[in-house]
């Protein structure tokens, strides 16, 4: 593979370390771009090469003349900037700390708003969303998203399935209004429109970066090293690397990707690397900005040691090769190399066939150990195995050849790595091989199988490749014997639809792994009752459809119920669906978490007050001890002892505070998970109503209302 390199157009040193990911570029005076980054725990640095006068809380750095420092008393988790104030073109800096968000006007040195974020702050974006006229500040927390306006007033709130890792505002459905794309830790890219989730794109790992690349396309990067591009919900391409992507940007018809190890590569429309460069240390961020004030944005790459490199979007030398009648250029040479590559590959393949036919011509001679009958074929089947609690992938050949080894390539379904392999002991070689699969999530999975077929003493094996798709609910197997169906399942969700039973059958056949397709006994059958067994934990799932359109899904797992409702709704094209639910376990948990959340909130304030008090005492005692050193050593010792004691107490307090904080975060997360699951039992406006009602009930600390919402939705 040939890839040319690029030279940067500018290069500068910040002389400060930069925390990866916490970097932004803003125009605090409305004209000049300033690079703003977190330089360690609570320090923010602002680079102002264009001499913008900065005063107030911001102090000039000793390490670099063009850099100013801003110290906060809290850790900096996220940075963002945007012109949120109506009628003012200046960018405001938004600083996210573990529990709060601060909007700060750097130019005027004034705070705009300050807001508690009980669910934590992971990502902040500024942008237009939906019908809101003004730019919103959208905050992604541990299990929720919240939008604020410039005054810090909450505009909307919603729950998501996991920690929010990345967000962008993007017109996903091309209606002229932006939707919010949320990349979550639970491996989904979710599309929030009008405060209601309209689409979920299942990915294979936590989604750590998202970036808009055109009106219809966006790029994504996962924590397992995958990057790719989506267009209208369809993935165009993806590639996987060992490194994680720090940032993706669109640069002159190429996708520029900045990897954690400091490599930057440009990929063309198919994901092939066109150019690459390597920074001297690990990467911290990459952004598009007009940092040179030339009227066109550059790609600005920042390393964690504070090195900043700028690359132009368009390569200047491209224009040289415009005419056709000219001396052959380097690109043409590459084309020749590429052609020869192709020729070489073809020649190798041809040689293989020729050698093969010459060996078939005289097949009286003893068979070489690598040979095998040409009509060997590989058969693959998937069956549920309720004894081993898994799906068995069965691979077999149709003759006496053996399956020496088989590899299954799929993402997100194995405990470790991206492959599962079976290599039987040499005395257990058979022409059939079983591979157990345990998909942990209910999503459709493509499994790619490579099997090596030959004889025990072969030096070379034939490769057979097959791709199989596992349907979404493949881990649920149908129960044939009705003996264990006696006990009724308490938990269930019911709703009413106006659809023929045949359509339900098709949905079942498509989404479940069934040995035989579900068919109706005769044309007049109007109802359906079917039972499944979950291979993971052996619990039951029952789906009933009665003639009047009533659907009842009984399962103890509220998440599964939600998945089923969503899947069915998408299949039947339902825009809105209201349902009633009864999940005693979830309700119990909801009560428990709610009590913890409110309890923890109270203790937190008490602890904070205590800590502040003791800290004040220490600050008084310490100079006293130092003074004592001058006249009475004994007294000094005593005072220092006190300081030590207090310090220990303070430390202990700190540990307790941290523990309660952690507890609060987990509880809140659990709570949000249940609320999300409750929302997923409904579709469309009913789902949205559940979220809104829940938010209100949580704020009012009204547990019974929450349980009611879970049961019947918002009525």
């Amino acid at each position, binding site marked *: 593979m040939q890839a040319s390199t690029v030279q940067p157009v500018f290069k500068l040193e910040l002389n400060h370390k930069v925390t990866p990911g916490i970097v932004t570029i803003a125009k605090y005076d409305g004209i000049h771009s300033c690079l703003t980054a977190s330089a360690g725990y609570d320090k923010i640095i602002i680079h102002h090469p264009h001499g913008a006068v900065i005063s107030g809380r911001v102090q000039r750095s000793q390490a670099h003349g063009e850099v100013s420092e801003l110290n906060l008393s809290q850790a900096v988790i996220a940075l963002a900037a945007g012109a949120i104030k109506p009628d003012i073109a200046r960018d405001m800096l938004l600083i996210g700390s573990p529990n709060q968000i601060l909007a700060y006007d750097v130019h005027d040195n004034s705070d705009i708003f300050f807001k508690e974020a009980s669910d934590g702050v992971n990502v902040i974006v500024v942008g237009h969303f939906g019908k809101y006229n003004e730019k919103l500040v959208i905050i992604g927390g541990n299990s929720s998203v919240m939008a604020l306006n410039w005054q810090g007033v909450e505009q909307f709130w919603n729950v998501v399935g996991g920690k929010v890792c990345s967000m962008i505002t993007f017109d996903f459905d091309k209606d002229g209004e932006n939707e919010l794309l949320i990349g979550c830790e639970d491996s989904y890219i979710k599309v929030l429109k009008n405060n209601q989730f309209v689409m979920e794109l299942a990915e294979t790992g936590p989604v750590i970066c998202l970036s808009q690349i055109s009106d219809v396309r966006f790029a994504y990067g996962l924590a397992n090293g995958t990057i790719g591009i989506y267009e209208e919900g369809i993935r165009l391409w993806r590639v996987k690397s060992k490194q994680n992507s720090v940032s993706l940007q669109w640069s002159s018809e190429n996708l520029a990707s900045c990897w954690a190890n400091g490599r930057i590569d440009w990929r063309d429309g198919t994901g092939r690397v066109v150019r690459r460069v390597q920074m001297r240390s690990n990467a911290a961020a990459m952004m598009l900005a007009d940092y040179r004030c030339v009227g066109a944005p550059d790609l600005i790459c920042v390393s964690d040691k504070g090195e900043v490199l700028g690359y132009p979007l368009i390569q200047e030398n491209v224009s040289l090769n415009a005419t056709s009648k000219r001396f052959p250029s380097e690109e043409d040479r590459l084309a020749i*190399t590429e052609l020869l590559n192709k020729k070489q590959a073809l020649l190798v393949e041809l040689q293989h066939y020729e050698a*093969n036919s010459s060996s078939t011509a005289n097949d009286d001679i003893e068979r070489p150990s690598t040979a095998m009958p040409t009509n060997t074929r590989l058969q693959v089947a998937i069956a549920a195995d309720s004894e081993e609690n898994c799906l068995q992938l069965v691979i077999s050949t149709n003759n006496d050849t053996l399956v020496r080894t088989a590899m299954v390539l799929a993402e997100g379904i194995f405990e470790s790595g991206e492959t599962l392999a079976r290599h039987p002991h040499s005395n257990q070689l058979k022409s059939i091989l079983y591979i157990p699969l345990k998909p942990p999530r209910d999503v459709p999975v493509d499994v790619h199988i490579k099997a090596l077929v030959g004889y025990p003493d072969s030096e070379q094996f034939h490769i057979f490749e097959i791709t199989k798709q596992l349907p979404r609910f493949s881990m649920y197997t149908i129960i044939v014997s009705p003996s264990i169906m006696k006990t009724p399942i308490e938990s269930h969700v019911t709703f009413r639809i106006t659809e023929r039973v045949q359509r339900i059958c098709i949905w079942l056949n498509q989404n479940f792994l069934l040995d035989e397709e579900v068919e109706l006994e005769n044309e007049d059958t109007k109802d359906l009752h079917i039972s499944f067994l979950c291979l993971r934990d052996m619990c039951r799932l029952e789906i009933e459809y009665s003639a009047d359109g009533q659907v009842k899904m009984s399962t103890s797992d509220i998440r599964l119920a939600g998945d089923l409702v969503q899947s069915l709704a998408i299949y039947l094209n339902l825009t809105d669906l209201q349902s009633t639910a009864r999940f005693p376990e979830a309700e119990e948990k909801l009560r428990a978490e709610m009590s913890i959340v409110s309890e923890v909130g109270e203790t937190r304030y008490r602890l904070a007050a205590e800590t502040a008090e003791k800290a004040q005492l220490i600050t008084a005692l310490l100079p006293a001890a130092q003074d004592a050193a001058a006249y009475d050593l004994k007294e000094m010792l005593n005072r220092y002892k006190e300081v030590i004691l207090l310090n220990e107490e303070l430390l202990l307090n700190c540990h307790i505070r941290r523990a309660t904080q952690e507890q609060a975060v987990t509880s809140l997360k659990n709570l949000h998970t249940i609320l999300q699951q409750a929302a997923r039992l409904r579709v469309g406006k009913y789902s949205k109503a559940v979220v809104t009602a829940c938010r209100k009930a949580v704020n009012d600390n009204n547990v019974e209302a929450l349980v009611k919402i879970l049961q019947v939705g918002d009525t």
Partner: protein
Amino acid sequence: MDYDLARIDYTLCGITYPDSLKILPATEHKSQQKFVVGDKNGVLQCLSIKDEEPLVQFKTLPGKSITSVQLASSSGNNAEKIFAASGNEVKGYTRKGKVFLSIETSVAETITSMCVFGSDLVLCSGRTVTFYRELQEIYCYMCDDRVLDAVAFTTPNNIKVRLLVLIANKEAIIIENGSLYKRTYIAAGPTRITVPSCLHATEICVFYGGADGSIGVIFYEESILSSKCLVEGCCLGSVMCVGWFNNSSGTHLAVGRHDGSIQLYLINTENLKEKPRLKFTYFCGEPVTSVYGGCIGTEEPELLATTFSGRIFGLRSRRLVSGNVPTSNTKTVDAFVTRRSKLENEVARLEKQVANERDKYQRNTRSIYPGISAPPLLDIQYELSGATSNSWQEVKIISAVALDMLFIYCENKLDLQTDSAAVLSLCSAQEATHPELLATVRCQAGTRRLWLRMRTVSSAETQVEGTRVLIYVLPAGAPRVARLIKLHLPTLPHYSKYEPIEVEEKNSCWCELRVSGGFSVAEMTAWLSEALPGELPRPANNVAFARSHTILGTSLICRYQRGLAVFKSDNISTIAVLKDVISNCCVKRNIRADISCDIPDDYCIISFQNIKDKFKMEYDKNKDIEIKKAIRSLDLNEISINEETQKLLCKDYLQIFKKSDEDAETNFHDLIEAVKNWYLDWCKLSLNIQYNNDITILQNALKECLLEDITEILSKH
């Protein structure tokens, strides 16, 4: 980097072996040079380049693989002759392609390298160097190990011929009249040598490229054969070929490496021992088998290279490639356009042909009367190295076709590492109780070379048998077959360093293992190959060789003949392992053998005294590294550390912190483990009672580097 050279692809040939491309000297009326190349299919072709288009001057029919191509040295009357070795044959061709000489030599193995010197012919094959004069065999010298390369020189009085020979045991020797004249040991492990053209005929001075990627000179001055390393390996692959490149700025040594790098070093012809200056580096992505300079495509010198898979390309100055100079020569432009379209047509035709054949092949899979699918073996070469300082053993795999995946299987747990460009994924074990390794390595598109490093996790269970590793290599394109590579990781992987047998005279505390019984030399060789890495000497009446440990520096001397084997080592653990290996082999083969050990009573203490300095050094180094780690985790700012006014770190710590990261590896823990094992093995072999208490005291003393306590325990009995 000074030169700006760009790649121009000329043509393809079959798989090439190292040093099988040569550039013919320029004739009087033409300055553009022709070149010859021989490949694995046995085709020798002579090509010239006109307007970037290769023109075949002559081409032989396929036959036995050509393993070496040489031109007659410039002196003598046959300067224009081409010699090609295949198997044990050597053929001579004229410039026109006429065979004027064909001899079948008596060498038993394939000729891997040869040298033509006047009317003399030197052939290297297996362990022998054979000298021919006027096509008559004069002598045949048997070396201790495989012969890698040889060059010939005349003696000052111009009567005799001296041969400088490189041997795989890292030795360079001079042979005169069929007997050993001088020898020297070169730690870098030279693989290829070349003689600078500026040399006086009687001087002996050659440049070598080493297995560790380094470059150096070997010279014979004042009756001493010695060597000097000029350029360190610095993480580049092992050298596969060396050649010369002359241009207006001087003479350059061209180096082609296993990792696909091609480098040019400017040599000071006045003083060859001066450090050469690196002028150019290019990565072509697959192992380079030959690299030479000459005027190939234009009047200006360029670099010509071949790769393992059979690519032949030139590296010429960029201004000649992408003409930023206004060109009046429209002929070149037209030629280029026709060349490109010709190539495109050819590829299209091939595509069609391949599609036909593919169809035919696939039709066969559905027929009722099955034929047989017997694809030829994939062209894959691999090489397993001995263990390096961290016990990693590296296997290098090169392939003629692009690779897709590797699947690695081992019955024992292994640690694995691979190329940074490949994705290593460990699979969960097949059965929970069985400690297996199943791993896949997914390669980047176009990968043709790959390295894997592995080491055994727990040596205890694998001591006797060695570890067998299966690697299935899956190519990216057709043919859809996977080749199986079987590797054997020996039980004593560290004994990869060859030593002269004289190491026995070293003042050390030797333990001896004596085995007598009804075994043959061949059997003993086979048994030892379970334990030792690398190639062993071929069975002969009396075999004797020495190796040393890469970390501890301890030696192992093996002497064996029919029915008797004696092993000496100053490492008691080695003797203990060997004893287990051999007795296990004897039992398996049902051979009765008497095994006895001779262990000195004061072994432990003397051996420890020998490594004491090293131990102390490693202890200090380990401490430094730990301190550095601690300082680093403070996350100090570079600037604040260097600040003169506010000193954050004391002097000592600052010094440690500023130390480079390069030597941030220590063998301290290996050393502790080794000394502990010495003590345990000593107790076992000399039938002393071992006190559990002692071993914990010893271990703690070792950890804290309490030299007195250690000495006390070790000299207790």
